[in-house]
């Protein structure tokens, strides 16, 4: 049982990526499912960031190229976002009764702030005061700019190959 679950995951993950693009399709909409992601001028991480998209932002799908999706964002901006930052589900930032008024089904919605959230972490921390989160908070503050990554690879004589999430 456990083994079969493990075997299913690579296919499920790849399928999900493909399905997410297919489900949204040109003309469809997707939501940003990470805290922040860059809207880039070209379909690559080295592409210039022209704006920052935030959790729950909805974007219109224009076209896809490999793992990158060209989207239209608010303010008439268009650019490229990586598939792993987007979901075909509509992310509802409001909680509680708001969900009862939407016509979308549970499978079409992702409710922001629901389930395992900061409140749950807070309750957990109250019950386990011996577990210190200082280093976790410090880790998350680490920021590396795309420019620094590029310089690092170049200085080390590393030339990225083709393909993948570049």
């Amino acid at each position, binding site marked *: 049982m456990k083994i079969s679950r*493990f075997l299913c995951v690579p296919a499920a993950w790849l399928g999900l990526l493909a399905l997410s693009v297919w489900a949204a399709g040109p003309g469809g909409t997707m939501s940003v499912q990470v805290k922040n992601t860059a809207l880039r001028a070209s379909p690559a991480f080295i592409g210039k960031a022209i704006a920052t998209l935030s959790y729950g932002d909805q974007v219109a799908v224009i076209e896809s190229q490999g793992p990158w999706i060209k989207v239209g964002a608010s303010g008439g901006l268009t650019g490229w976002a990586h598939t792993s930052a987007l979901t075909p589900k509509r992310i509802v930032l409001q909680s509680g009764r708001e969900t009862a008024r939407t016509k979308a089904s549970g499978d079409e919605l992702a409710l922001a702030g629901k389930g395992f959230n900061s409140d749950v972490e807070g309750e957990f921390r109250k019950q386990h005061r011996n577990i210190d989160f200082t280093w976790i908070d410090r880790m998350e503050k680490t920021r590396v700019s795309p420019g620094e990554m590029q310089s690092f690879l170049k200085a080390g004589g590393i030339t990225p190959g083709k393909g993948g999430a570049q």
Partner: protein
Amino acid sequence: MSVKGFFNFSLPLAAGCHVAGRLWGTAFVFLFAFAAADAQILDALSNIGAEIGKQTGVLTPEQAESVKKAGGAVAKTFESITPEQEYYIGRTVGAVIINKYRACGNEEADHYLNVLGQALAQFSDRPETFGGYHFLFMDSDEINAFSAPGGLIFISRGMLQCCQNEDALAAVLAHEIGHVQRQHGLQAIKNSRLNAAFSILAAESAKQFGGQDLKDLTTAFEGSINDITATMMNSGYARSCEREADKAAVVIMQRAGYDPNGLIAMLLEMKKRLKPGGFDFAKTHPPPSSRIADITRAIGAYRPVSAPASRQTRFARVMEQIRP
């Protein structure tokens, strides 16, 4: 300190039953949720439960509709965990790890690790997670590395000693990124925990978040953290997961421009250093020789890594900073 020492939790089934007792219209759904495994049956039960609740006045029509919509979630597995929830699980798993092993705390070395790791993550199939990828050296001579769900990755000093060049360290990080990409940590969560959590969420969608719901959800959360940390630190992932992570590491390294032979170089060194019966990779991972055999099938016979002086110099500096 054992992982079990952190927690003293009750069964999440009890948490699910508590919710059911307070909202009997949905209880019909949830009690069957624990016994049944078929998603379609559960969806149907969700609808029936919501209808009963509506007809008996326990739920308003709006609330019943909401329960119907959320009911499908009861049948979900780890794949239904949103990136946001994965992030909170990962933060706590990471906290448990770093409270056990402690951080080295060398700012320059940690920054190097983050530049290398975040650059590698860009070449994975999952470059973006809710909170992003972050890396830290652990102050431990054990040969160990951990990846918490969502991308918090920890490398021990003992593991660094198994690396003779940056390509080998890149291989270790890429392997851990592979675990994050494939969500192996989340797969360690028992379905009973998820059933309990999603049951609470299904009921929660029909009303405001209550104090008892938070407690019940925290119980399921606590159990989930325990499932993941126990798997990572004690039993190890399934062999198939380690193979997947190695496979992902080779792909990431090739895309990034690192030599995948770095992975074999690291495993050869690890083979020399691992002590049988140890509480590190010797306990939680397949033997290095078996992993090497799998990797050479993918990339061909082992060839020693040749790195330019600039790469080796910066790596040597980090080795010096993290030396015991």
